């Protein structure tokens, strides 16, 4: 049982991500839904100490979390890899002003992807983030989820960097129909 009252399944590594966010004093969360983030989103909504904003498009979250930083709060943007493309121009805000920033990106278009429309953006996601000045980390195995998330938040806020954590499609499980 988490502080939020949400009960993750015993083997759900999102519980480790949630715990890492709590330890690192994340209080604002912005997201465009993704199946890979679904249980984390439920837990965050159930937590009365989290301010959770559902967005219409991912770039709103970049600006929203910059505003949170102006007000002294830490935040994280949850999205899937297709959303990274929507954010590109807004990412300039982060580098222009030196905002710390963390996004957790669930990957599509890689491991066993069934939908070809997901492949172009998924395959260009790491390079897109790097070209925008992000430090990019990747979680391939469930056991790393908590540690990588925590390290990402720490370097983002302690060293004022934009940081992305890519959650691999192999980890999440490829979607099937």
């Amino acid at each position, binding site marked *: 049982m988490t502080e939020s009252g949400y009960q993750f399944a015993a083997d759900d590594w999102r519980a480790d991500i949630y715990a890492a966010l709590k330890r690192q004093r994340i209080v604002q969360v912005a997201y465009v839904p993704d199946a890979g983030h679904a249980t984390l989103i439920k837990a965050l909504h159930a937590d009365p100490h989290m301010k959770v904003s559902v*967005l219409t498009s991912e770039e709103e979250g970049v600006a929203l979390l910059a505003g949170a930083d102006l007000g002294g709060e830490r935040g994280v943007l949850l999205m899937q890899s297709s959303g990274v493309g929507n954010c590109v121009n807004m990412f300039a805000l982060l580098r222009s002003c030196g905002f710390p920033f963390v996004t957790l990106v669930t990957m599509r278009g890689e491991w066993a992807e069934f939908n070809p429309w997901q492949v172009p953006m998924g395959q260009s996601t790491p390079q897109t983030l790097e070209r925008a000045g992000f430090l990019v980390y990747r979680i391939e195995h469930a056991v790393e989820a908590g540690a990588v998330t925590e390290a990402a938040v720490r370097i983002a806020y302690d060293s004022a960097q934009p940081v992305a954590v890519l959650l691999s499609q192999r980890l999440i499980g490829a979607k099937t129909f």
Partner: protein
Amino acid sequence: MLPRREAVTRLLAHRPSDLFVISGLGSATYDLAAAGDDARNFYLWGAMGGALSMGLGLALAQPFKRILVLTGDGELLMGLGSLATVGVQAARNLAVAVLDNETYGETGGQASHTAHGIDLADVARACRFREVMTVRTPEELATLRDLLLRMSGPVLGVIKTAAADVPRVLPERDGHAIRRRFRQAVLG
């Protein structure tokens, strides 16, 4: 039609100490600077479509401070979805003032959507803003000021303004410096 500089100056006259302003890129940033530089101003020089979202993040972080987003019709049109996001959050301390000259003034004066009857006040109302108003005359500015600075948000005021050229007043452009100064003003 209202002269934009006069409108912004009157809105910010005798500025309450807890009022923090984020301006959208272009003319709104110049208008905010022309009304008097202040550590409680955050001037955007880019991030088109992001001013309102930024205001929301700040409003959620600082619920006891008043947050005013001052922007143009083109900037808000690019972030139209953020009106819906603000409506969901229903932030009581968040206000939006749109300087609506019905043109993309920075890029050659092309007609914007509002020149064709798209009504940003109506959009905000549909997005569950608590109060909205549109003003066209100086006599209405006192009511607008009351809406933007005192009424329970989210609120939005559209200021119909002439598309006339006004001299640019250019504030600090270094985003790192703007961020540092603004955070110090917010956080002490």
